[in-house]
C-alpha cells in the first residue's frame, strides 16, 4: 500500500548562510516491528520505491518514497521492535 499521507514536507530555508533544500519525512504508519530497511543514507530513490517494510498482524506493510531524492536520514533498523506509528523513519531531500 502507498502511504503518501504519512509524509511531511518541510520548506526550503536558510540557516547561518547555508541553503537547505526541501526535505520530506517518511513516518511509520502502523505500530509494529521493522522487518527490513531497504535504503541507506546517501541512496538515490525514486518516487514509489519501497524504503522499508514493517510487520504487523502477520502482514508486510510497505512504506514507499513519496518523492524522488536522496536519503539523508534513516532512523530505524532491521528487526527493531515496538515502533510507534508517526515515528520519523526516513528523511528524503
Amino acid at each position, binding site marked *: *500500500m502507498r*502511504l503518501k*499521507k*504519512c509524509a511531511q514536507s518541510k520548506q526550503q530555508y536558510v540557516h547561518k548562510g547555508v541553503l537547505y533544500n526541501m526535505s520530506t519525512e517518511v513516518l*511509520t*504508519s*502502523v*505500530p*509494529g*516491528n521493522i522487518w527490513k530497511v531497504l535504503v541507506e543514507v546517501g541512496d538515490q530513490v525514486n518516487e514509489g520505491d519501497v524504503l522499508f517494510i514493517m*510487520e*504487523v*498482524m*502477520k*502482514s508486510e*506493510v510497505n512504506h514507499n518514497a513519496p518523492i524522488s531524492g536522496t536519503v539523508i536520514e534513516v532512523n530505524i533498523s532491521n528487526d527493531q*521492535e*515496538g515502533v510507534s*506509528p*508517526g515515528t520519523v523513519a526516513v528523511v528524503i531531500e
Partner: protein
Amino acid sequence: MLEVINQGLETSVQDYPGRVGYLNQGFPPSGPMDSWSFRLANLLVNNDESEGALECQYTGPSLKFEQDHVIAVCGADMQPKIDGKSVPMWESILVKSGQTLELGFSLNGARSYISFAGGIESKLWLGSKSTFHKAGVGGIDGHAIKQGQKISLGKSSTKPGRKVREDCKPNIQDSGVWEIEVVRGPNDDWLDEKGYEVFLNAEWKLQARSDRTGFRLDGPSLTFNEKATNKSPEHGYEPSNIIDQGYPIGGINLAGQTPIILVNDGPSMGGFIVPFTVPSASFWKLGQAKPSEKFKFREVSVYEAQEMRSEQTAICTQGSII
C-alpha cells in the same frame, strides 16, 4: 454507495455477534474484536447494534461518499477527517455527497469502527455479514475491502450530533499495560501450581505477529504437572500437547511455551492445552492492544465473567446515547 479510495490495513465488514453456531464445522464467529465500541457506533446512527459496519485496524481507509449519509466513528483514535477537516468521534456526523472520510494511523488503541445509518448492504453467509478474511467468506467478496471497490449502504434517516455518554465509553488507555481477565480452564490441571502462578504474575508482551486469528505472547517459561509430562503417546510429545480437542473462543492456547489467545477468527480445535480462557467481556481490550504492549492477567470466576458481560450488554443500549 461509497467508493474505497484507500483500503487501510485489512479493513473489513463485521456484524455483531458474528457467525455464531458453526464452530463445530470449523467456522469461527468472526465479528468485531472490540464489540463495545462497535455496538455504540451502530447505536449512534440509530441502527440495530448488530448491523454490519467497518472494522479498521491500525491504519484506516479513505472512503468517498456518493450520497449524503450519517455515520459514526468509535474505538481507536485514527484522527478521522472529512475533506481534510477533523471530525469528532463517538458522535453521529453527516458526510455530504462527494466528500471523503479519511482515517489515518491510530494514535491510541488499535481498532476503529465506522458505522453507517442503514448499515452496509452485503449478502449474509451462514447468517452473518462478518468477513472471515483468511477463509475468504462473508463481507464483500469474502475479503477485506479493496481500493476501487464500491460499497452499497442501506437507507435510513437519523440526525447528526447524537453522542455517547462519557461514562459509557470503553477506557482505551495508552499506559502500555492492559489488565485482562481470565477464567481458569478448560485444561485446568495441566500446569503445576507454580506454572499457574508464573502465568498470572508475569507481564506478557504482545507480538507483532498477532492478528484476528491469534494473539501471540512473549514471556516466561511455564512448568507442568505430571499429567503433562507423563502421558500416553497419543497426546503428543510436548508437555503442552493434548489429544485433539475443541477450543473455546478466547482460549489461551499453549503452543510449546508460547501462549496464543485464540480470538474472533481463531481455530475451532487442535492439540494444545488451554490453561486459561479470556471471557467475551474482555475482548474489547484485546482488540485495542497494540504490538509490544503488555498483558497482565487477572483470574476471575465464571460468575464474575458473566456479570462483566451483563454490565457491558447494559451499556451497549440507546440509554448510553444522548
